[in-house]
């Protein structure tokens, strides 16, 4: 059993932060709890944020998408606003995480704050230029998700609360695809690659290639992105894509573990990068977002 002394339930983010500051000893935020309950990290008290008004999704008048950190993966998989955003890439990835009963309670914030290199939701959110909203006792901060991860199981939070994420309105029109390489049908990522592509007047205005599970933190492969950025769609040849994929593989810094070797992971970055770029380009050419 998880040896905690107190279980507190917050009704809003500010109260959660206050409870965390006031609690005796070491506290942990719990949203879904699907990681905490099985890892049972040493702590004295828990602040439950599942009812802290952080579980919603909203679209601003400008078209920015706000996702509460305590929104469940199942919610993201089904919410219409999320499904409509960038062709539904986030919904598809959310629906591919863990299994149905776990998705009911597991949250996007939990997935990100847990900060596993293989965090399933990080690459698509990064590919869509997500910003994080963080709340401490006396301050609020917003930062790019790209800057959120510090190392394996380490984030910039240091006890602060991740309240939610925002995706910029322009990303809603990007073509985005993510793919997990897995050992069996339901699995965490051995390698994940997400790519997004924004096209304006036939020119690649935005391209993001994000690699998961192949570095201490989910990472963008900017050198690979540079191969494609600014080109006209018609100029993007298979050779360029092959090169971009090779460069992404070179930028990755995978480790060998019981799930896969570094060598295999690196080559799979190449394969998946090529496939994801193909997929988003194909959609861009067809003008089809999903």
């Amino acid at each position, binding site marked *: *059993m998880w040896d905690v002394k107190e279980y507190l339930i917050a009704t809003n983010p500010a109260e959660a932060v206050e409870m965390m500051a006031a609690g005796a000893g070491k506290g942990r935020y719990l949203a879904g709890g699907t990681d905490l309950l099985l890892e049972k990290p040493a702590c004295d008290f828990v602040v439950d944020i599942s009812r802290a008004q952080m579980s919603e999704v909203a679209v601003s008048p400008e078209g920015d998408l706000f996702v509460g950190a305590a929104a469940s993966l199942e919610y993201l998989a089904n919410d219409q606003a999320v499904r409509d955003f960038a062709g539904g890439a986030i919904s598809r990835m959310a629906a591919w995480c863990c*299994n149905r009963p776990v998705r009911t309670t597991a949250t996007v914030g939990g997935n990100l704050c847990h900060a596993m290199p293989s965090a399933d939701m990080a690459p698509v959110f990064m590919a869509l230029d997500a910003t994080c909203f963080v709340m401490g006792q006396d301050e609020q901060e917003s930062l790019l998700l790209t800057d959120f991860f510090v190392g394996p199981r380490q984030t910039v939070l240091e006890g602060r609360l991740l309240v939610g994420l925002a995706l910029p309105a322009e990303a809603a029109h990007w073509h985005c695809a993510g793919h997990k*390489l897995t*050992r069996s049908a339901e*699995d965490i990522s*051995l390698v994940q690659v997400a790519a997004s592509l924004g096209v304006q007047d036939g020119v690649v205005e935005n391209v993001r290639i994000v690699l998961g599970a192949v570095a201490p933190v989910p990472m963008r492969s900017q050198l690979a992105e540079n191969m494609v950025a600014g080109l006209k769609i018609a100029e993007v040849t298979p050779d360029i894509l092959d090169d971009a994929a090779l460069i992404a593989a070179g930028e990755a810094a995978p480790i060998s573990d*019981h799930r896969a070797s570094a060598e*295999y992971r690196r080559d799979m970055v190449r394969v998946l990068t090529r496939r994801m770029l193909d997929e988003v380009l194909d959609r861009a050419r067809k003008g089809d977002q999903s």
Partner: protein
Amino acid sequence: MSPVKKAPPAPHRIMGTPPPAHDHEVVGKNVTKIDAFKLARGEPAYTDDFTRPDMLFAKVLRSPHAHARILKVDASAALALPGVVDVIWHQDVKPILHTRAGQSYPEASPYDTVILPEKARFIGDRVAVVAAESLAIAEKALDLIEVQYEELPAITDMHEALTRTDVLIHEVPDPRGIGEGGRTNVAARIDRQVGDVDAALARCDLVVERTYHLPRVQASHIEPHVAVAWLDEDQRLMVRCSTQVPFHLRRVLARVLEMPEARIRVIKPRVGGGFGDKQEMVLEDLVSVLALRTGRCVRLEFTRAEELIAARYRHPQVITMTTGVMKDGTMLANRMCVLADTGAYGSHALTVQGNTGQKVLPMYPLPNIHFKVDTVYTNNPNSGAFRGYGAPQGCFALECHMDEVARELGMDRLELRKKNHIRLGDTDPLSVKLGDNKPGLVRIVRSTGLDECIRRGCEAIGWDKKQEPSQPHLKRGLGMALAMQGSGIAGIDWGAATVKMNDDGSVNLLVGATDIGQGSDTVLAQLCAEELGLECAQVVVLSSDTDVTPFDVGAYASSTTYVSGGAVVKAAAKLREQIAAILAQHWDCEAEDIDFAKGQAVSPNGQSMTMQEVALHCMYEAMMQPMASASHVSDDSPPPFAAQFADVEVDPETGQTFLRKFVSAVDCGTVIHPLMAEGQIEGAVAQGIGYALFEEVLLDREGRVLNPRFLDYKIATALDIPAMETILVETDEPSGPYGAKAVGEVPIDGPAPAIINAICDALDGTRIYQIPATGERVWRALDEKRKDH
């Protein structure tokens, strides 16, 4: 052997027996599985669903070292924790050598185990056990126990274990000489030959030799091992547990606790899956010791991590196959050399590996066969029994090898098999050479549907016309494998049954045979009902309780339908004869002329009674309890056969395999319950798919399990299972009850070789010699091939 009542053949028998006189009433019908509704409703039926108010919770402290003497255990801090009732370690328990393997006495496994060892032999070995008022307290107490270890050099590589004697994992000789403890690290050896393989190989046009690597996999029944023990009001030891072998367990408990069997009662409630992993005393001795010491009820349940570290695995093996063949495809000689890792203890070390050859090589009954085994101790966690019991390893090697031989020979792989496989009337050449710790009995094939299995399987998979890949970047392939197994262990496995009639004409069927979810209670009830002309629902089955039910070896070796079923048929026939004798007096006719069918007894003169009237007459007029017991053993172990086929697509860039269709055509003799027989096959295939593609317990060099969780020890989910087609090819086995043979194990043998053969077909000959065929292994094999060219 006394004859079992022979049933008329079912309509689809392929053997030349006359058409059926009448259909069976119960046998061959999909009656409702007798425990299904209560399980569907989630009623408390399993070991952990029974609680007692005075219950203590036990937890095991496990060794962090692969090989270390346990010099001292200081439990004072743990015992000082409120709620901790007892802590035991090796000084508290008498070291009585035994094997935890649940096998017939005398067990064919070395006596190399004590309840709590003075030397830890793997990371996870038992060091101390706590009993506390709650699980949380017991868990806390583990952290407070201080242990002094003297670390010893460890051996975790099986090749090293075979040659090194400077480190002995077992220093005490096995009193019965099965293992080589005290001298070497060999737990069991086999070396048997039929004919002269070397001489034959010298004559052959082609000799093919390959080596195959088999992983460590775990049964992963969803209900963990769990046991509850307490003393009843007579101070007898009650053990309720999730076991496949209640009677063997009672016997081993009696030995290690130095108590007479009469003082011990083992009760098996519903069991949430076993698959061989519960054919072993994995934790029952611990709760028993603690119950005896504390006088309290004690419960111990493994966590999933403990299941993956401290239960049992299918033995990892390295198998080298050498086959000699003539240009026309006539095979002359087979040699199978097996190196196997039993881990720290030798339960099932001899017999599992014996099966690797014995259950597999006879598929091609060549005049020259050599079968050699070295099973070694290592400082790795334990191997043991797991469905198939050595045969999946052997079948993988042999059936992959058949494809390799055919490819080198330039012959069609199916034709090579058809030319050489075992046929009706053939003698299994290895059967006499390989008994289970005693001389074997001759096995002659008296029923086989193998040709029909091949024909119908080919048809179902579309063997003649491989389909196009579903996407351009994928490659498609077909593969197949043949498999055979046994039905019980000839001359060793036996079981008994008692049938007694109640006032309403229903009967109680008491069997030691152990239903662990496979549905044996239902199958045995069907056999009993058929014999007595009752409906299945009129048979109330109790399995198994050592105080109440007669002996049975338990649920293993594909024995229950064939062996225990034989006992049920005999006991029911005896009961019928008793009733017939009484009715014959009453009706003044010959007993054998009375017919029992559809719940009635009918005399030749047209008199009839319902079974309720029969029961009332017997009990209140004749003053006699209709009741009979019978035992059954078979000198034969007729093989069920299977032909299994896989259709796969492989992504050559990622190495991933996608299984599109799997077909099993299985001859298990007469099918007693078609849906449940299919269920046995489908479940076995799912486990076989995992073996082929993603299941593997990974150890680091120190022998530490790296993936003790379902997140990383992958078993098949609903999405990993392809379209599955299961074909039952009925035959009539003369020695089986109503013509039945076994079905539980044979279908787990073929999936891995069929799938790997299909991958090889898809990749134009690139073969994986080590399973599971993970994406990375296939990717690597393709990479090596590219480098070669």
